[in-house]
């Protein structure tokens, strides 16, 4: 836990200062150690030796799908907003997920928020509460197929 936070903060420091001068690096090390030791209990960044594989999967499998879905989402918003009759069929639905980890659930919730027509309201245990602009289905399987399945598969590979 401590080590993961240390690595993340140190790399962020290097990006922020945008230089490799020895003085900056030394101060960055000190700051990262201080930040990663204070309030350790409340942090949730944690990774293991499989991290490089996960990053590669994240960049090459998750990101293209995510960006494509996001562009689709925005075109969807554009079509709805620019249409004079404002086609809407909104509703609040409940969807089950099979992801277990905290961070993977957060990634799923954020992905759902940024993809076409859906906005995560709340997560409780294994259920996601979602506001859906265009409700197409009410049965559990259909909802999962429309909303979660696509990202669930990818995120399961990355996080679990």
């Amino acid at each position: 836990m401590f080590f993961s936070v240390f690595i993340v903060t140190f790399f962020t420091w290097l990006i922020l200062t945008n230089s490799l001068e020895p003085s900056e690096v030394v101060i960055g090390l000190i700051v990262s150690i201080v930040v990663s030791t204070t309030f350790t209990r409340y942090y949730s960044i944690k990774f293991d030796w499989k991290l490089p594989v996960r990053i590669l999967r994240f960049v090459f499998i998750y990101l293209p799908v995510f960006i494509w879905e996001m562009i689709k989402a925005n075109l969807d918003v554009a079509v709805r907003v620019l249409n004079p009759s404002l086609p809407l069929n909104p509703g609040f639905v409940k969807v089950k997920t099979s992801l277990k980890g905290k961070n993977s659930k957060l990634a799923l919730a954020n992905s759902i928020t940024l993809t076409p027509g859906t906005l995560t309201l709340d997560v409780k245990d294994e259920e996601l509460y979602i506001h859906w602009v265009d409700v197409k289905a009410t049965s559990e399987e259909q909802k999962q197929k429309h909303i979660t399945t696509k990202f669930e598969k990818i995120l399961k590979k990355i996080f679990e």
Partner: protein
Amino acid sequence: MRRFLSALIALGLIIILLEFLNLIPDFGNVDLSKRVSNSFINKSVDGNNETIEFKKSKDLEDGSANVVTSIVVNYRSFDTLGEVTVLFTAALGVGLILKGLRRKRFYREPNFILKTANGILLPLIFLFGAYIFIHGHLTPGGGFPGGTIIAAGILVLYLSNEKFELSHRAKILESGMGTVYVLFGLVGLILSGIFLRNFLPTGVIGELFSAGIVPLIYVAIGFKVGAELSNLISEFQKEGQQ
């Protein structure tokens, strides 16, 4: 009656302010070359007028690249000591006023998404705060904004975690950092006879290790302001007595 009195006091204040307006010279009639601010900006209070080059000029009178910082924590550091004291008094006042009030604690369960996202964001928020007050002499920023960002991190922690309670160490940190500020001043007094004199070498302008005691004082102010505002927030969150 009370309203009449407050209106009277406000009127008096307005008249005093309007009187002071006469002391300000008219627009366009100021000779800037005679103003003291010019020598602050050129970093040449002792009349040593050489051109300053970024990352080249060495051992200047004040080595901080940010003009505001060089004025706030070097030329007018004593003012800043007063400002820090004002903030301390304000926090103390809030604590004293809120102590006897009957309040209920905020208790709705926080959102899962917020809780998890905060676990990732929190170290980064603290890192940004530290970045801002450590680079106070090179970039816009400094101890006060940096400390405020750290306190904002504590505020988000309070809102996203029901069990979080600020430890007693924050108060110790705050008073300790105040003492460090005064100690720097006293060392300057002993070494050169002037309170808060910049007694360390000022180095090359624009580098991280430059400007003498300015970054050290800004680090102290950053910790002090952060701890102080965090204490203020925890004071608002606590359940009242009775």
